């Protein structure tokens, strides 16, 4: 109880409240703007939060994460251009409702269902995180290795164009994490005579490059694209009767979203699509989906915001990111000197409750911002790309340089961005590489420790029941994306 009060009291300091609202504002802004995303904003903010108190910094990012998921629905509804991938499902019915002359109602439904989904997942996060952490305290290196392996295998079913490419990106991320001095033996690996590489490749410049620069290059070909815009006069909250009629959909989607968020690597995008599909499946009028149906908005919105809270559970309790964005929050925790995992709960429990408080405030914050600022945010889409993207580039240059005042990092950022752009064109996504980069250190450390414990006999790993459990889950998650297609192949033959 003391830790809860301590954590909440930290959040309710005036300075931290301001920082959280800044996070909410930035989150809604970047979520609303197509091309910008929460992971990009977090990557750009990371170097600048070094000067902030760790609680304020992480709370700001958690608030940005929550708000960004909602922000994407604004442009999804008003201009059929989802500002963030999780809002793709919202656009299916949200834009149609806006076209029928009810943009305010669509935004109101999205906002309220997002808040409800977010709140439900935060409560689950509050209770599940310490329980999971307590379980994880019993894990040894072999169990952690199994868990990290399972987390990486989930990349195969992560949202993206190709499971094989996701896995390749993940393995490449882990390989990049091996650059630098090997801590166990002191051997310098893959330095190629470049002294700066002895410290390894820092993840912040890579993140900025992959998310900001590659997107800038992608956007350079759409500079002249015309966009049909729709001004929202005001966000109209749903009536109590409307909410009662939709309560089944909202609650179901919130539970589903939270569960998907808890799974490693699966995040808001998968949750939103599943939320939409399940809402349609359980609906009494599935034929209305795609024509501006309220259930088609609240289903994905409740799920995608619920996934945000769910994704924080494994991130904080196990040190395994629940989504691409929480992988960055995990990196930020490490940057600020915290040890994500069960030790975060035992050594600095107030941090967990502070994050809970920040997400709670963020969920209320974006509802308030949506109510007051819907018209303003709809005008955000009028910012010409020719001014927006040079601004992103400027922030990227400053951010990557300021991280450790090393010019080398700017070049790392650029190289990551250019390679990331061409990789994107060939169906690779940045999130799996980020997951690999973040998890790589833990994977190698636990693998090495396990091999030492078992005298380099990998088959002895299967003496651990927990490792066998995660290994089976790994096989299932690796093969699931291909079952249907392989069956089809054999049927043809």
């Amino acid at each position, binding site marked *: 109880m003391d830790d809860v009060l301590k954590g909440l009291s930290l959040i309710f300091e005036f300075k931290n409240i301001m920082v959280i609202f800044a996070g909410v504002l930035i989150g809604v802004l970047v979520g609303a703007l197509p091309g910008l995303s929460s992971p990009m904003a977090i990557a750009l903010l990371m170097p600048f939060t070094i000067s902030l108190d760790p609680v304020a910094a992480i709370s700001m990012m958690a608030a940005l994460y929550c708000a960004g998921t909602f922000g994407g629905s604004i442009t999804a509804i008003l201009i059929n251009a989802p500002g963030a991938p999780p809002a793709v499902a919202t656009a299916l019915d949200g834009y149609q409702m806006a076209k029928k002359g009810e943009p305010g109602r669509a935004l109101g439904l999205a906002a309220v269902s997002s808040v409800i989904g977010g709140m439900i997942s935060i409560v689950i996060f509050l209770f599940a995180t310490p329980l999971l952490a307590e379980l994880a305290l019993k894990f040894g290196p072999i169990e952690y290795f199994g868990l990290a392996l399972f987390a990486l295998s989930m990349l195969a079913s992560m949202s993206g164009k*190709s499971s094989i490419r996701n896995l390749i990106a993940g393995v490449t991320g882990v390989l990049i994490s*091996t650059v630098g001095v090997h801590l166990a033996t002191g051997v310098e690996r893959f330095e190629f005579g470049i002294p700066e590489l002895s410290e390894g490749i820092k993840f912040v410049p890579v993140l900025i490059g992959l998310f900001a620069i590659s997107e800038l290059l992608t956007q*350079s070909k759409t*500079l002249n694209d015309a966009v049909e815009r729709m001004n929202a006069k005001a966000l109209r909250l749903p009536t109590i009767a409307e909410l009662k009629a939709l309560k089944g959909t909202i609650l179901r989607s919130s539970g589903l979203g939270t569960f998907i968020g808890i799974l490693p690597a699966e995040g808001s995008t998968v949750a939103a699509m599943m939320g939409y599909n399940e809402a349609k499946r359980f609906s009494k009028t599935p034929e209305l989906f795609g024509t501006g149906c309220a259930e088609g908005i609240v289903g994905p919105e409740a799920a995608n915001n619920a996934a945000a809270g769910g994704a924080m559970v494994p991130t904080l309790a196990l040190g395994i990111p629940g989504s691409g964005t929480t992988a960055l929050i995990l990196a930020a925790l490490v940057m600020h000197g915290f040890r994500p995992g069960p030790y975060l709960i035992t050594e600095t429990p107030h941090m967990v409750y502070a994050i809970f408080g920040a997400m709670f405030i963020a969920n209320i914050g974006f509802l308030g911002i949506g109510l007051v600022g819907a018209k303003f945010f709809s005008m955000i889409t009028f910012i010409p790309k020719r001014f927006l993207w040079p601004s992103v580039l400027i922030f990227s240059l400053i951010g990557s340089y300021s991280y450790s005042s090393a010019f080398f990092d700017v070049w790392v950022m650029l190289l990551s961005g250019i390679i990331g752009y061409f990789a994107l064109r060939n*169906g690779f996504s940045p999130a799996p590489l980020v997951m690999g980069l973040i998890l790589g250190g833990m994977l190698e450390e636990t693998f*090495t420790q396990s091999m030492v414990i078992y005298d380099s006999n990998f088959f002895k790993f299967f003496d651990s029941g927990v490792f066998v459990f995660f290994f089976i889950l790994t096989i299932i998650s690796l093969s699931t994306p291909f079952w249907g297609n392989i069956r089809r192949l054999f049927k043809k033959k």
Partner: protein
Amino acid sequence: MSDQSSHNLAPEKSGAKMFHRKDLWLASILIAFGAFMYYEATKFPSAPMVLGDTLNADVFPRILVVMLIVLACILPIEFKITPEKIEKIDKERNEKTIPITWITIVMILTIVSLSSFLGAALTMFVTAIVFPLVWGEKNYIAVAIYAVVFPMLVYLLFHEVLGLYMEPGVLEYLK
């Protein structure tokens, strides 16, 4: 029809092709990269005896490289396993990279190369003025205002408020 298919890098739906040509190139690049990293890993020295039982530094990277090569080998036939996903990827990558994107890459590389000479403030100014103009912005007054105001605000925010050190560059010699 056969002329079209000879220029079409995506495989025909009849399934006559064994490999997807573009993915074959991609796989070759990844395999070459993997082979290079594997070779580099063989040059790592072994762990000193004084450290006792521990894995050598090359073991984990070599396992990763083997995994990377195995996955890369599946790429050229992925179109047979998940045809709809590869079709989607092909639709996007068959669009050529347009000149403005190449120009943007060159501009970014040039500005970064000059940035240690220019310093932070001038680099921001040059970025803010060059990019909109090269990208076709015709409202020169807006560009001028943006090129002055935005870098100034960013400089004030990061240098004065957040205390971030910004390289003065050539401006140092003009003081």
